[in-house]
């Protein structure tokens, strides 16, 4: 049993006020430190990068109906580093003037898939995702077809607008 008999009404009011004050000051301190700290941790991650067209080879590099991997060099800012990163794309030449270009990462969880000529399928080794030559899912866990990339022909060169997409979701969302 706590002895409250000695406390007058004024004293109780003062104690209550001070208790509120303690929590108010505590909350103010938590917000003053927490908002910048967590903001610096979360907000920079919400920015999106810019894209531009980069060369993926000459049109003669690709034979009709035979998927071929091509490495494109993308200039990226990785935090404080300016990086020229190599990214893989798979180019499928459908006709003399028509191409399909796939982002080289599996739409499931981002592993690198590759074309298996024997099976005529794209296979991802991680979780067994399988895609047809036009990127449709044939089996395994991938939730959507392979991600196609924008391309254009400039003279003899195939240019690709490299872009990454969110992994593991049914819709194609640029990141």
């Amino acid at each position: 049993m706590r002895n409250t008999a000695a406390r007058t009404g004024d004293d109780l009011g003062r104690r209550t006020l001070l208790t509120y004050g303690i929590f108010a000051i505590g909350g103010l301190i938590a917000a003053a430190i927490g908002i910048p700290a967590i903001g610096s941790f979360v907000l920079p991650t919400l920015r999106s990068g810019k894209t531009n067209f980069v060369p993926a080879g000459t049109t003669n590099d690709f034979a009709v109906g035979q998927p071929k991997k091509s490495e494109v060099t993308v200039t990226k800012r990785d935090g404080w580093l300016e990086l020229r990163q190599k990214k893989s794309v798979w180019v499928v030449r459908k006709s003399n003037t028509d191409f399909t270009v796939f982002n080289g990462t599996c739409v499931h969880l981002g592993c690198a898939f590759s074309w298996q000529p024997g099976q005529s399928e794209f296979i991802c080794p991680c979780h067994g995702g399988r895609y047809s030559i036009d990127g449709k899912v044939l089996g395994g866990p991938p939730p959507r077809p392979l991600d196609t990339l924008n391309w254009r022909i400039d003279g003899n060169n195939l240019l690709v607008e490299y872009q990454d997409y969110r992994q593991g979701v049914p819709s194609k969302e640029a990141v």
Partner: protein
Amino acid sequence: MASSRQSQADRLRATGAWLAERSGALPVWNAIFARKMPVGVGIWYSFGFSLIFCFTLQAVTGIFLAVYYVPTPDYAYASIQYIMLEVPFGAVVRGLHHWGASAMVVLTFIHMAVAFVYGAYKFPRELTWMVGVVLLVLVLAFGFTGYLLPWDEKAYWATQVGTAIPGTLPVLGDIAVRVMRGGTELGALTLSRFFSFHVLLLPALLGGLVLVHLFLVVYHGVSAPPHIWERGIPLPKRFFDTKSVPAPSFSRGQEYHDRYAELKKDGKTFWPYNTFEDMLLAVLALFAIYGMFMLFGVPLEAKADPTNTAYIPRPDWYFLFLFELLKYFPGSLEWVGAGVLPPLALFALLFLPLYDRSPWRSIRRRPLALILGILAVVVIAFLTYQGAIS
């Protein structure tokens, strides 16, 4: 001569007494080391200390690794190579850190299994268990943030997959991946935040919660072994027979505390009996860690290459079961396997003391707990095995 030695000894004793009084160490000693343990406490109670030992080992080796390690993609791998090839004992320090991590996971698992089988999570130690489950999550978080740091192929690709998993969750998936990676892609920002968590945030959290856990262990005392706790009540003739004897009256409340005090009266003190067993198990753990290092060395694959299409990522062995679990879910249900089942299992573990209200502690009188426990171990072992051979 003899008298001067005598007076020296007296002076030493006086200094000791002064220190004991001024520092307040005596009550601490009495509360922790001179405390009595219930009858029958043996080596199975020593896994907690082995974990503290391993955590200390990880802290010490980690500090020395941090002397040389650089957490940025252009130098991380080179700095690890430097540790391995040029720093005297560098490979040993990294080897102890690498295998110490696996030892922590194994010991955590055994420690929890013992608490589970002994019903040690029951009254009054519910909170001790729940803090322990949070510690398990922190140990796994240490593993996850730690294996990116060498920036080799395994590090890069396993983290690539591991950080993509939360992205399958509806609504919050995208932001979860961005916050984990520090952006959309794995890179310098991922490495630095993983490093910061691994060496600053997680040790502080784990250290603090270990203190809470230990306080609770000392405050409530360790649980008595069930066969002694339920001594005098005849064991059922067959498994699953819970009806032949009435439930004990002392499973909770004042009756519990009375019986516990009685069992402590006949018990031994923590120092030196249990302390010796704790040290014994700790040194065995250290031998095992050294043994793994000498047998298998410490892996370092080629430097991470984001364009390598041939690399098949594998997480560390203790995440294989989660990795394998994903294969059982078609794409559209991925988020169930990734974002629903594991948290559900974790909550089931966390709140175990709150929904398991059986008054019995002996596993022979807890058929449901026994079956579910074995099932959980079999499923995890099966998935781990499948993940290892696939």
